[in-house]
């Protein structure tokens, strides 16, 4: 029943910096099935960011193939890539990247504004629904400055969910948060993964965070060093419950 969401074959990415050629990715192949929760780990310089950019259709491979939900990304134009991102990918960034002085609801609606098939009323409904999914239904009218870091990240997750993407791509999504809030975010991610079957690709450098996923791909010097399936993943919710009190969740 499982379907390949990502299919990467012998992927290489080279940058020309002056007279030197930097090999950021030196041939990577892996598949991601629908419903997987994958973390991509690696130290800086391992090619993790480059891979993320390619996975997010922000960049294209120099050599090799990348199929996202069956679409070959390599042949697409800039505008087609933008449309693909709009329909198939939900981004969650380390710095949240919410529009300032804009309400949570409007921030969540943003991706749908670039989808001309969605009417104004449908846009609103879907945004409200997405905010419910991240348990922020009562914070529609709050602007980012009125929200805590964790809440802002949840708004960002709602924004990633609103276009019903085939994959959520998180870039160090817990990097700016304290450990309690990080666990809250991971609990939310696990819940979305478990109950709604969302495919999640999570880039991080914290092994602690990676342990909540079902699979970890370890990058080193532009190659896959290790690709491990975690049979029994940790539950972020349990970890959260075992933390000392003063819980406001």
């Amino acid at each position: 029943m499982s379907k390949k969401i990502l299919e990467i074959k012998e992927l290489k990415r080279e940058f020309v910096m002056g007279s030197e050629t930097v090999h950021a990715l030196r041939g990577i192949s892996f598949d991601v099935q629908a419903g997987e929760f994958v973390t991509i780990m690696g130290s800086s310089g391992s090619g993790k960011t480059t891979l993320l950019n390619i996975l997010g259709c922000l960049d294209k491979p120099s050599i090799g193939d990348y199929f996202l939900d069956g679409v070959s990304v390599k042949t697409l134009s800039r505008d087609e890539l933008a449309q693909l991102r709009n329909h198939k990918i939900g981004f969650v960034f380390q710095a949240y990247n919410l529009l300032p002085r804009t309400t949570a609801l409007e921030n969540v609606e943003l991706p749908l504004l670039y989808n001309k098939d969605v009417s104004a009323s449908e846009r609103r409904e879907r945004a409200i629904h997405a905010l419910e999914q991240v348990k922020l239904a009562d914070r529609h009218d709050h602007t980012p400055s009125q929200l805590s870091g964790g809440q802002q990240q949840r708004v960002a997750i709602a924004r990633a969910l609103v276009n019903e993407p085939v994959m959520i791509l998180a870039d160090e999504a817990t990097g700016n948060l304290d450990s309690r809030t990080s666990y809250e975010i991971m609990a939310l991610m696990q819940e979305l993964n478990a109950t709604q079957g969302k495919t999640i690709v999570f880039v991080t450098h914290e092994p602690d965070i990676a342990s909540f996923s079902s699979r970890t791909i370890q990058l080193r010097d532009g190659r896959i060093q290790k690709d491990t399936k975690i049979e029994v993943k940790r539950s972020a919710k349990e970890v959260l419950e075992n933390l000392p009190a003063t819980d406001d969740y």
Partner: protein
Amino acid sequence: MSLINLIRIALKALQRNKLRAFLTMLGIIIGVGSVIAMVAIGQGSKQSIHDQLSNMGTNMITVQAASNLNGGVRIAGSSFQTLTSKDIVALKAGAQYITEVSPAVTSRGQAINGALNWPTSMSGVAPEYLDIRKLTLKDGIAFTQNDVLTSAKVCLIGQTVIDNIFPNGENPIGKVIRFGHIPFQVIGILSPKGFNAFGQDQDDILIAPYTTVQKRILASIYYSNIYASAADEAVTDQAVTEMTQILRDSHRLRSNEDNDFTVRTQQELIATLSSTSGLLTILLTVVAGISLVIGGIGIMNIMYVSVTERTKEIGLRMSIGARGKDILMQFLMEAVLISITGGVIGVLVGFLSTQIVTLTLGWPTIISESSVVLSFVVCAVTGIFFGYYPAQKASRLDPIEALRYE
């Protein structure tokens, strides 16, 4: 992306920085406001000149005894004696484009009432003169053809003369005043006309039958002017040609001789004065137009700053699916919204300042639709023109670089 979405996005982006949007608009507001006010003032003064001249009768034709070459010496027109009663007879008999004709002579002197006197001038004219010059009487009656035939010592009096020799508000009608040595009975009061476009007081005048002035004061058979009115404003030119020919015949001028008179119409005056005021309007509009361009540069400047400042936002929008042209349209729309909103406020400011000018300075103003439409179009064009380059810069950003921009 649909236009409505586009406007929504641009509006929201502007709302996030209201003060800056307003300050950017200010250039456009001042530009448009001044264009409208300047054009209104220019048009108003043009119209008021035209009105004043019309008040004097736009179909009025004036014949003046002109300078002529006399043994190589040109003699001043007023001292030249060519217009006589023969000309009047000829004009009345032969001209078909003119309806009324009146000779005119002028004499300067003191108007005296008892111990009070006032220097003024007396025009000796025919009864038709009142029609030709569009003069009306406030009180009393005009003199008649009979008064002309009998050289009656009657006169019409202007308001300025009344103010000076009847200072206590007495009714001058029926009173006898003197002009120089000659006594005149006042039979009518002219309605005040105020100052004309050249600053002359049109009420500082006495009007009497021309025969009276000629025989009793000047002792001359010549006229200084002939006034006539063309049948219609449209046939003024034909009337001028016709009158010129009749007068040449009457003066027995050979075909190689110059006219010894000058025929003028109000049209020429209107054209001259209108062109002066038209030039002024152009000048004011150019200055105002320059301020509109400066306003446009202000928009461009702010849009540049805005693009740089919002690089991260642009990166985000691109990462969630905005295409380059969506970003281009968004920033272009922001620039256009700023300029058009500025334009609307500018139009209101223009209306307001025009009203203030009219109310405080008493200048006549006319707000022309064309200036409103024009400045509006210029605004929109300014927004697109000056907004395009920054918008294009934004649309060409690399999403990866933009997302990482700090």
